[in-house]
């Protein structure tokens, strides 16, 4: 079990920082007003964060990825999540072969 001191320090720094980002929301939320605009802000977080994470893949990667995202959305509106995932992954593979 060999652990280099500089590497160990880097990993510990990563772990501590990541943990702090994860727990700080629990504490910060106490300062968000209950109800009204505060509640509207918190309620928007899931949609805002998920959309931001996928935006480069959906809008900036290529035609196959954008089309596959549209297909995924259409399937997701009617069928369970797992069906949407299969439809999305399947269509991106095919579209990349056809268009890529």
């Amino acid at each position, binding site marked *: *079990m*060999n*652990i*280099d001191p*500089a*590497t160990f*320090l*880097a*990993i*510990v*720094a*990563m*772990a501590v*920082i*990541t*943990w702090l*980002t*994860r*727990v700080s*929301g*629990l504490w*910060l*939320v106490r300062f*968000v007003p209950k109800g*009204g*605009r505060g*509640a*509207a*802000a*918190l*309620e*928007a*977080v*899931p*949609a*805002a*964060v*998920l*959309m*931001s*994470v*996928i*935006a*480069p893949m*959906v809008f*900036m990667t290529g035609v196959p990825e954008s089309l*596959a*995202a549209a297909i*995924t*959305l259409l399937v*997701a*509106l009617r069928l369970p999540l*797992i069906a*949407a*995932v299969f*439809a*999305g*992954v399947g269509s*991106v*593979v095919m579209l990349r072969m056809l268009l890529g």
Partner: protein
Amino acid sequence: MMPTNSSAEFRAGAMAILPAAVAVIPFGLLLGARSVEKGLSTAEIFLMCATVFAGSAQFVVIDLWSQPAPWAFIALTTLLINIRHVLMGASLAGKLGGFSSPGKPVAVSFMADEIWAMAERRALEARLTPAYYAGLAGVLYVNWLVWNMAGVVLGTAIADPESLGFDFAFTAIFIGLLTGFWRGTQTAWVLVASSAAAVVVKYAVEGPWYIMAGGHAGVMVAILVWRSGDDAGKAHVA
């Protein structure tokens, strides 16, 4: 809570996270293999996966890695990528009513994107229980360690996430989850603002700033378009 109830909840959580756990396999293999190439020992790779447990940050950091490790630069990069957790934790905090006071910080310590998103989705339709959350987190955490270690052993030749469309799997999962968070026109504004901000910032600025920009833009727009009376009829489990 009845024990049988808890084990059913745990299983439901484990099943919910299963697609994400499968999708993460090639990424775990690739990250484990890349970490070896960057000169990290098996013990160091295990330590990072077990204590950081944040795939996107680990991928970016491993690409920047050199020997000796530039720890301050690595720490700053990690902060930049993971700062989105602050918003995510603030949002999830209101759904942890079924958790004990020490249980809440323990739960959010495992708040990977997929676990958080599945927990938020669960809270839309049922009370989020510690057992359900443990099912989500336990499966994805063990899965992450196992496939990273497999990548250490097997090397780079085996895993290319793009070849089978695995790189798109998380996008597909998140699109599917997004449909559950629809609240009418105010959600449309949030999505437009988040997409626009994320795309512009991704285009203009190197690095992962776009997530924070898009997240904040969406939240800001939600605050702006809010009208009193919007809260009526919304039964949120707190």
